């Protein structure tokens, strides 16, 4: 459920992301919290194929990576990637996929945690759930404050 402040936050993200895109287009990637417009270009660079589908209040771009892993990027109707999810034999490039949130993940991964086959990062503005083992990885990351109203977290996989 999105609060009023959450909606406000979404537009702040949007404005900030567009500004970044305008000022430094080379930095704009198909990355969490950033515009979806570069997904096609990124996919070409990754030699990956993309299949896009429209849902009621978001779009899903399904990217088949060369490793065999499927990466799904969820974008708002305003064009901002608010969630990413992956499943397959290899981890995706998390630095590109998570963007500015990559450092949060690295900090969590370096900290003591229970077990080695799963990792959870739970913050107000960033959630990541990653699990699996050799040849079988699955996970997702999303921005709770940017998830469109009416979208269930169960849809983000």
């Amino acid at each position: 459920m999105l609060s009023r402040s959450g909606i406000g936050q979404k537009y702040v993200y949007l404005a900030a992301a567009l500004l970044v895109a305008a000022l430094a287009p080379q930095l704009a990637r198909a990355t969490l919290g950033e515009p979806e417009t570069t997904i096609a270009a990124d996919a070409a660079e990754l030699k990956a194929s993309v299949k896009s589908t429209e849902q009621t209040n978001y779009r899903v771009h399904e990217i088949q990576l060369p490793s065999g892993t499927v990466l799904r990027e969820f974008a708002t109707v305003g064009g901002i990637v608010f969630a990413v999810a992956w499943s397959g034999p290899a981890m995706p490039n998390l630095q590109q996929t998570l963007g500015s949130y990559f450092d949060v993940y690295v900090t969590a991964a370096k900290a003591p945690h229970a077990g080695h086959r799963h990792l959870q990062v739970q913050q107000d503005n960033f959630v990541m759930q990653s699990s699996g083992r050799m040849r079988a990885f699955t996970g997702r990351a999303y921005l709770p404050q940017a998830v469109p109203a009416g979208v269930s977290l169960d849809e983000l996989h």
Partner: protein
Amino acid sequence: MDKFKRALGGGLAMLLSLATVSCGGGGDTVAPSSSGVTTVAAASNVVAVTVDAGPDSASAPTINTLYTTVTVCVPGSTTECQAIDHIQVDTGSYGLRILAPVLTLSLPVTVASDGNSLVECTQFVDGYSWGPIASADVQIAGESASSVPVQVIGSSKFATVPTACSSTGPAEDTVAQFGANGILGIGVFEQDCGAGCVNSAAPGYYYSCSQTTCSPIAASLASQVLNPVPLFATDNNGTILVLPSVAANGAASVSGSLIFGIDTESNNNSGTQTILTVAPGSSQTVLPGNFTTVYGGQSLSDSFIDSGTNGLFFNDSSIPACTSSNFTGFYCPASTLSRSATLTGVNNVSTTVDFSIANAQTLATNNPTYTAFSTLGGTYSSSTTTFDWGLPFYFGRRVATAIENHSTSVGTGPYVAF
């Protein structure tokens, strides 16, 4: 207390997550050792396995981590050999990996298809390990395999890590981080990557490295890091882990057996075990190696049994999580809880498993030198579909792991049976 936190602070690693504190000399207590349910007689296809505090027990003690000793030799040599202790026994990975600092031999590095050196980026959920592929003769008990591709992690020869590898997380390339001198991956598959790495040069797996640069390269099945078991001359269709049961409050250490082969000798008969087949290596719907666990009314379709996990990890919001930051991610119920789950293989065969979850903080505090706990559990990342049956599952059981496309008297892998 400082010591307590330090022990945890070093615990980035694979399995060290719950602190155990060495008593710092003196103060040894008389601890019950685990009781044996099944004793396996010495044989050429049996190697001893142990649960103890690990290779760095003073500064980075481990919990519920199963070890054995593996001998590696320079290919073709009978004199240039090294027995390496505290190699972790892991049914959740494939192939032998050795930490470079413990390796005293000079093993030949594998040549990639373009003539450069073959180097791998091994991915984990919480980081990566980078190092060259080398060739070694591998001996475990009376079993041996020649010229096995193994990974040497953290080798100083290839110190520059490509961005596509380092972008998967923090590096895990020290004995302290691993909680082991190496890993023996003996899960249900033969290769650590499989067909995906043959067909394309996928970033984040195999690399061709010259003196100066590395770039992704395809790797044939034979050149990938290989589970050594299928390479043995005999007893090569799988393994059986036999571990004694462990008391509810834990054990100082555990001694068990790893048997090679299933239905190949008089000591490794399948008998009437329940066989759960798991998803094949090519599976896309259910991830490879996984099966379904029904727990608390939820069907968890990406579940697995894994000796390389140090607890039972699953989600149950009715079990209180530990509140101490030293035990984040583990369960801390007021009293030990009894639970039950139904495991269903890809073959639709089902069986029920009973287990107990105790208070992790109480377990560690009451017996700080114990290294084996049958009742240790924790949360899995929420909204996932996994029940991770870690090492506690193996205590008191005889668990067979049959390798993909290899047959036993009762079926064809990939399957697990117990």
